[in-house]
């Protein structure tokens, strides 16, 4: 339910004509929600621009996977390339948008999403490249952890993926934008009050005038 709320808001960040990288896990689910009349090219950093739907059983091909190692298809207009070129696209600023999962986001727009010290280190994969290279970084995550503690922090406690890299944060409670002047609450999710967001957010943020009026 929370997940659906986050995903439905996140898909609105995608505009017709964009080249987009969706992170592994929850962000991957956004692929199915992109409007059919949009011409959007999804990038998979293992070397595919133009990810298609999951294959039918008889179309499964071990030589055609996404960055999450799932079998996929390639849509019309797709291209294949090697890993260096894939990251040249990312680092060179040719990918319009990356939507990534998060563990913590700070009020400065720092992101931590790759490692929890003391637990097994899996590695950062392409996340550190994406946050520095894609034109716009949207992070989607639950607002609080399972202990009820805010994941939207004054400063991140986990090892960073990137400093001041997040442009937009979407949770089940609210949407925030980040800029030179700081973190700003720009939307409340349906049925959520400003007081609830304030009480569940450790970070300091300003409130967009449009919300003050509604509240």
């Amino acid at each position: 339910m929370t997940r659906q709320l986050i995903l439905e808001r996140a898909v609105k960040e995608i505009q017709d004509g964009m080249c987009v990288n969706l992170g592994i896990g929850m962000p991957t689910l956004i692929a199915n929600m992109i409007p059919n009349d949009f011409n959007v090219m999804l990038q998979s950093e293992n070397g595919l621009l133009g990810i298609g739907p999951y294959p039918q059983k008889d179309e499964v091909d071990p030589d055609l996977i996404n960055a999450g190692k799932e079998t996929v298809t390639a849509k019309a207009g797709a291209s294949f390339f090697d890993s260096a070129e894939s990251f040249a696209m990312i680092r060179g600023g040719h990918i319009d948008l990356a939507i990534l999962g998060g563990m913590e986001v700070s009020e400065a727009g720092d992101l931590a999403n790759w490692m929890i010290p003391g637990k097994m280190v899996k590695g950062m994969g392409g996340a550190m490249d994406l946050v520095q290279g894609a034109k716009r970084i949207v992070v989607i995550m639950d607002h609080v952890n399972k202990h009820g503690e805010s994941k939207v922090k004054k400063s991140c406690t986990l090892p960073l993926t990137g400093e001041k890299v997040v442009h937009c944060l979407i949770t089940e409670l609210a949407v925030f934008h980040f800029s030179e002047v700081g973190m700003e609450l720009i939307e409340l999710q349906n049925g959520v009050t400003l007081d609830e967001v304030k009480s569940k957010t450790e970070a300091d943020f300003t409130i967009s005038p449009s919300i003050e009026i509604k509240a």
Partner: protein
Amino acid sequence: MSKLLSSFESAIEQIEDGATIIVGGFGLSGIPEKLIIALRNKGVKDLTVVSNNCGVDDWGLGLLLENKQIKKMIASYVGENKLFEQQFLSGELEVELVPQGTLAERLRAGGAGIPAFYTATGVGTEVAEGKEHKEFDGRTYIMEKGIVGDFAFVKAWKADHFGNLVYRKTARNFNPVVATAGKVTLVEVEELVGTGELDPDEIHTSGVYVQKVLVGNDYVKRIEKLTTANA
């Protein structure tokens, strides 16, 4: 002199303990599965292996872990492998985690004779610790070094006798940059064609980078996460 070899055993004859081996593939897709098995059978130890991932417990580079042949692993993502975790925590295995794009570029640079380059990836994170920082046009970058290996293991779809290569779909992944970054590059393919049969416009890797070509049979091509439209 022909680059074509008939046995995987003879292909890896020169590889000794302590060698640095760069290996293509992403997850289990496009991995040089026959060369890895030959190396497991040979049993050389204290290897430094550079590859995006480290296979799974019983396949791909996981076979070398199982046999305790890897001393140091340089990779971007190793989360699919329990043996890896055990050997890392017990201190048997040294690990250098590298962002995926930085890994690809370090191999590209190594293969292209570029000793180092600057990138914004990793700035402000533990990846940047101990590395040179430099500003260009107001943005901070860190210096990363190119990688060259003693040997490179590559999997391609087709080769001709000169070693020109064509890859298939996303099985291309790291293979083209890996091919450039080995002092000795060994390539295994599903199909060997006559020289001149590949359209020069469609060759992904020039044979100039390739020292030996082997043809493998009965590729396993294990799938890590089978996902279908009906699932």
